[in-house]
């Protein structure tokens, strides 16, 4: 009766069966002790443990570090300094001149991040909306293009940064093509303007597939016959877009806008690999500033980094609340 397949199955299952037997007894004992209600705690414990160790405890530590000074790594070695780190970040002699600030790099990073977010989010919403509109039409190879635009989302940010570095560096692919076309090669990543533009372009390229997908889902949820009704009414295409597509896509657009804002503020990995914040500090963004202040600079100052990250966290909390509010409102007032 016991065929080869059966044996093989047993062999594969054996470790799991053993594991189940091992945890069976403690679980029984626990249940006898606490009753059936106590079992919920057992099953929640692993998740709560992970959440606690990797989220709650670091969050608490962060607040603690932000109140301490010195260069020590262990909290015990660090003297309490109150709100001095926040003061240091926010202190300037003349608030109209960045260089008079004590932590002028922090303000550089804040300014860069602000400019980046304004341009990158605008570009992101525009590009993903246009892409979604095109992909929503009955074009040839629609499935193929949908995949093409989504692939970069699956890439690790480091890979994204590296790919574009190989393309944009002095002896990179882009310059090779330009030379072959008889054009002058450019030092893309060593030019303040081009490097900043590259961070915007590359991060947009890397994430637009995700936002395109959200917008595409929204477009496909708009009933077809609304467009046919508009067609019967001789509605010009621009008016169809303004009066039908945009209003019905508004909830999805709001979600895209806020998500892009949040991720824009957090921008780090692909830019760090691509430009390293340079040339100079022209592509230094907040997360990189925090990383360098805390871990990478010679005078590393974990307290300062912690304080900066809490300030950034406050901005993100506001944006997240905005997103929650928008999506709730969208759910409540939606007519579909």
């Amino acid at each position: 009766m016991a065929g080869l397949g059966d044996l093989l199955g047993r062999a594969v299952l054996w470790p799991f069966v053993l594991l189940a037997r091992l945890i069976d007894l403690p679980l029984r004992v626990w249940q006898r002790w606490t009753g059936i209600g106590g079992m919920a705690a057992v099953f929640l414990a692993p998740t709560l443990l992970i959440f606690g160790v990797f989220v709650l405890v670091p969050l608490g530590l962060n607040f603690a570090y932000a109140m301490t000074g010195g260069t020590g790594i262990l909290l015990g070695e660090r003297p309490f300094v109150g709100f001095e780190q926040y003061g240091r970040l926010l202190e300037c002699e003349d608030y109209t001149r960045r260089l008079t600030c004590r932590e002028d790099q922090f303000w550089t990073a804040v300014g860069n991040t602000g400019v980046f977010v304004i341009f990158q989010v605008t570009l992101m919403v525009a590009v993903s909306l246009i892409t979604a509109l095109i992909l929503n039409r009955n074009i040839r190879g629609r499935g193929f293009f949908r995949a093409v635009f989504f692939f970069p989302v699956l890439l690790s940010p480091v890979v994204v940064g590296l790919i574009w570095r190989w393309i944009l560096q002095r002896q990179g692919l882009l310059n090779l093509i330009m030379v072959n076309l008889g054009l002058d090669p450019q030092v893309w990543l060593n030019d303040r303007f081009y490097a900043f533009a590259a961070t915007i372009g590359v991060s947009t390229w890397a994430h637009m597939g995700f936002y395109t997908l959200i917008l595409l889902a929204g477009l496909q949820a708009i009933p077809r016959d609304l467009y046919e009704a508009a067609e019967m009414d001789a509605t010009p295409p621009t008016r169809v877009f303004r009066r039908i597509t945009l209003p019905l896509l508004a909830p999805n657009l709001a979600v895209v806008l806020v998500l892009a804002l949040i991720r824009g503020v957090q921008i780090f990995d692909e830019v760090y690999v691509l430009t390293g914040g340079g040339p100079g500090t022209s592509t230094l963004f907040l997360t990189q500033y925090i990383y360098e202040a805390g871990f990478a600079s010679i005078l590393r100052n974990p307290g300062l980094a912690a304080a900066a990250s809490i300030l950034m966290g406050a901005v993100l909390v506001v944006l997240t609340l905005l997103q929650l509010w928008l999506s709730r409102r969208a759910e409540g007032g939606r007519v579909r």
Partner: protein
Amino acid sequence: MGQITLRGIRKSFSGVDVIHGIDLTIADGELAVFVGPSGCGKSTLLRMIAGLDRPTTGTIEIDGQDVTRTSAAERGLAMVFQSYALYPHMTVRQNLSFGLENTRMPKNDITARVDDAGRMLEIMDLMDRRPTQLSGGQRQRVAIGRAIVRNPTAFLLDEPLSNLDAELRGSMRAELAGLHDRLKTTMIYVTHDQIEAMTLADKIVVLRKGVIEQVDTPLGLYNRPQNLFVAGFIGAPNMNFFNAVAVDGQAELPGGLRVAVPGNGPVTIGIRPQMLHLADPDAPALTGTIRLIEALGAETVVHAAAADGTAMVVVLSGQPALRTGETIRLAFDPDALHVFGADGQRLD
């Protein structure tokens, strides 16, 4: 004006033929109903007339002008969709004026037109609501209003009442008929419900599998169905059919009753349930065994099996004393018979 002519219309979707050559003229001011079972191509035909789909071959004319290649926008027709297709984010007033705003019509005129339609359909008090805040019947009125304000050459309605409950359907049907009487605009009305077709239509187009089976007035279809399909489709309950063989102008119904029929060879003899009545005791009769009696008061519907087992339905007036299991003896006027040949076409 609003005369619509279809010539040799065919339509296939990715190689599958759905409409197989339709020739049809709908006169100006006529209320034509396309009726047929689900999937027979009614919507497809209507969408081609609207301009939302292009026929694979054939031409469409409106008032003598070939509009086959003309866009939906330029045909001057208005459509009422089965789903109503109201703009969900706009108020009723905005829904009604949206189409007019595409023309160069002055604002005051638009307001006047929308108000006219609103009064006609009694939806003035709903003007500031959104479609989600309306009942099914109210949405239906708004959808019709949106078509009316455009003052179209013809109205196209695709199963407009199918989402309403039975009672509302009856009253909206009467309103639509009234509306057509007042506007005198051509209407093409699609439905799978033969009662809707019979009550509304000036002319009924019976479709099956992308082919026109018959075009006639409601009573014309009822009295002289040209084939078995139409005979079975129009009229409720359905017509009774008996298979027989005609020899020398005579055929035998189950149970031995002989009737005069045209033609020779195998035939199908049809008789409507309402055309049968109880036979005199010693007169020759069509006999059957009663299986089920539905006493509705004013009339009694009897389901019976003929001698050869063929199921038949009889609608008798009043409340005759009958019992399940008994034999029923039926008589009829020979003129009430419909006889169809082996190919399903009417003989005579």
